[in-house]
């Protein structure tokens, strides 16, 4: 049997390659940090490059205190639990971490997941039924989309961060009509939603733009809807105390459900969580499939995550450093004449909107930067819309000013070479 499948699959893989969409992995021979050792292509001699494409926003991925905490936890709590939570896979440190996260966000309760992908995958189906409606930003992360695909609630999509479009969707959901008449003749009877939930990323990962949470919360009140925010690209560093887009938009206590990750700024190993209303979290513990059917976060990672939250509450230094680095890079790179989306987030997209061959340019540009010792990724359609190909730069608190200046110099050199800047 497999022979024919092999043929078909090879054909499809060839197409992916010729479309320039083939994903290749670069193998890192060191821990995650600003200066990493990379072997690329596979098997070639390794070289040192500066990493500007990780989500290691606070530089905690190899922070000595985090490593030490993980060691301690391994010694005290072992390697694995070999069980799901409700059988024999819950340790006191898991409850401690859930409490700590609740306190951090001033929320009622928190539930850990093995990843934020799983948190989003298990959220909607559990708390929304076919009588309910979910209203989602068109640029939400893939995991929210998958979560919604598994859920029976009626779906409404609103244009990215467009409050008029959101209001239209809210109205439609309240009245129980389809926004688009997908099935003429069917569902003619209006069917008003029982519960409505608005779902949005706190920060959108491709542009680094922040959701208009204050306005979303206002609309939610008006239409009696719940609000869910995935704050993966904000937890730990956005807002005065690092409480993410919710704090940045002054909406603490106004968002009903927050999902986020421990896999980016908070040390970057793995794990995610949902924090929010007590009854919702209780419901998730009873019914959420990725929680019921998969091990939770391993003890070593729980110990380190506890330490990460402690580091953040003790001092603002890392956050301050990250914001200084970000504004330095943003300022210098726009002064050079690059086309960047304005903002404050350490995700800095450098666009090629004025160029016809923007997709190709994004690839050549990132390759040349790599030659200069700067590791970044070029994104193009279909990951981002046509004409909006880009280099996505991610700044970290662990970058030194010299390292950032080196990146800026490399951008200048490569930019001039390709006539992207003068």
């Amino acid at each position, binding site marked *: 049997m497999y022979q024919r499948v092999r043929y078909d699959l090879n054909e499809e893989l060839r197409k992916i390659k010729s479309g320039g969409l083939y994903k290749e992995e670069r*193998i890192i021979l060191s821990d995650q940090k600003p200066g990493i050792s990379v072997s690329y292509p596979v098997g070639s001699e390794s070289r040192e490059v500066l990493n500007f494409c*990780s989500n290691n926003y606070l530089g905690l991925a190899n922070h000595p205190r985090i490593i030490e905490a993980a060691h301690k936890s391994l010694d005290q709590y072992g390697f694995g639990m070999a069980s799901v939570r409700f059988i024999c896979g819950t340790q006191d440190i898991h409850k401690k971490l859930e409490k700590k996260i609740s306190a951090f966000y001033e929320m009622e309760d928190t539930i850990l997941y093995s990843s934020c*992908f799983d948190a989003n995958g298990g959220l909607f189906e559990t708390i929304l039924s076919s009588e309910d409606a979910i209203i989602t930003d068109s640029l939400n992360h893939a995991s929210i989309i998958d979560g919604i695909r598994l859920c029976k609630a009626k779906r409404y999509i609103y244009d990215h961060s467009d409050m008029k479009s959101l209001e239209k969707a809210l109205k439609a959901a309240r009245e129980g009509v389809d926004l688009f008449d997908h099935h003429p003749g069917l569902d003619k009877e209006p069917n008003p939603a029982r519960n409505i939930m608005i779902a949005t990323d706190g920060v959108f990962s491709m542009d680094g733009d922040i959701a208009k949470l204050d306005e979303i919360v206002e609309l939610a009140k008006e239409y009696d809807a719940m609000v869910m925010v995935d704050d993966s690209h904000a937890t730990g560093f956005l807002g005065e105390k690092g409480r993410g887009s919710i704090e940045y938009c002054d909406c603490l206590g106004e968002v009903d459900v927050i999902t986020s990750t421990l896999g980016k700024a908070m040390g970057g190993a793995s794990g995610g969580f949902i924090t929010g209303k007590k009854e919702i979290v209780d419901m998730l513990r009873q019914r959420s499939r990725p929680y019921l059917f998969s091990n939770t976060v*391993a003890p070593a990672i729980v110990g380190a995550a506890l330490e990460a939250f402690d580091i953040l509450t003790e001092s603002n230094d890392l956050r301050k450093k990250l914001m200084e680095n970000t504004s330095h890079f943003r300022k210098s790179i726009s002064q050079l004449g690059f086309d960047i989306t304005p903002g404050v987030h350490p995700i800095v997209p450098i666009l090629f909107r004025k160029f016809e061959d923007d997709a190709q340019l994004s690839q050549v540009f990132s390759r040349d930067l790599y030659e200069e010792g700067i590791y970044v990724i070029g994104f193009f359609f279909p990951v981002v819309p046509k004409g909006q190909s880009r280099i996505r730069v991610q700044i970290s608190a662990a970058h030194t000013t010299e390292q950032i200046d080196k990146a800026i110099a490399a951008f200048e050199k490569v930019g001039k070479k390709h006539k992207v800047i003068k």
Partner: protein
Amino acid sequence: MAFSEAHRNIFQTELNGLKEQGLFKEERIICAPQSSEIEVSFPFGAEEKRVINMCANNYLGLSSHPDVVEAARKGLDHRGYGMSSVRFICGTQDIHKQLEQKLTEFLGTEDTILFPSCMDANCGVFEAVLTDQDVMIADRLVHASIVDGMRLAKAQQDTYKHSDMEHLEKKLELHQDKRLKVIITDGNFSMDGDLAKLDKIVELAEKYNALVFMDDSHASGFIGKTGRGTHEHCNVIGKVDIITTTLGKALGGASGGCVSGRRELVEMCRQKARPYLFSNTIAPVVVEGALAVLDLISRSTERRDKLEKNTEFWRKGLTEGGLIIKEGETPIVPVMLFNAKLAQDFAKDLYEMGIYAIGFFFPVVPKGQARIRTQLSAAHDMHHLEKALDAFLKVGKKHNILHKTKQEIIDMYGQ
């Protein structure tokens, strides 16, 4: 925010309903590493109690094995704590490739791709490799994560009666016209502890030109002569096209899973499987631990052999003592009680006597098939098992079900 009192009430009512039906799940807090004996605080905050653990998936007893912990420490020191990135951006280290290679060798396949969990592997694989011209034909008792993966895939879905080869053949005939037919099964079914008839499945797959998919989470590391899993036990190594399995049970028990199988299928997952593309892979500390586990069990079959002996002792002891168990040969041993309330009471009594095991009932298992599921481990020593057996028989006696037939127990307690 608009989480009103009305919202709160909707959820509270549903939660109360679960409590009334006895379906509310409560977590017991363990204050120590996973092991054959654990300190449990239940309810949370209550004084810690030392109990023998009969419900972990810690089949090989490696979850807190010193060599594994030591390797994990090495991982932390050499490769740091987190990657803060998905695989194809900057989240792949040399040790991730090493682990994939090791798993490929161990499972006897062509290639392997790591996932954050086996749940994620099952959720991502079908959508990545199948189209709407294909059909997935699944055993009716496959694990919930496979069901989720099937729900996300575009291929048509069908099922066959649990391990019923005639019914499977009928379904293969019915779907003869499809581009790809994939037979989907667990290797070891987690609720009953029975193994798939994998040799027969492979035979049918060859006859009807179908692919075979198997989730071997409850077998990898200990089923088969050298612990490679159900395909080794059934003598069909190399003939199962896709194997998914977990590092979260016998193989260390921390976290992580994988898809292992035909090279092109694995490659397709790297390009398209959403949980792989959109989530961090396994952290370095867990990767190094898993590498040490594979080393340990490739060097010697001592641990799986001990598990096999423990299993024999346990199955024989329960049967001779007069309890009804699901027959089989795996370390998952369900003690059948048929009635939900009896199962709960039985578990409670066991806990009082220092034995931790869980009662399962509808909807987790079919109505009228309530049970206590026991799981053996190589970490159990004879004195643990003797004590546990003694407790099971005492509690069985208390409830007057020793040496009774299924019908007699149902007559006493209802179904």
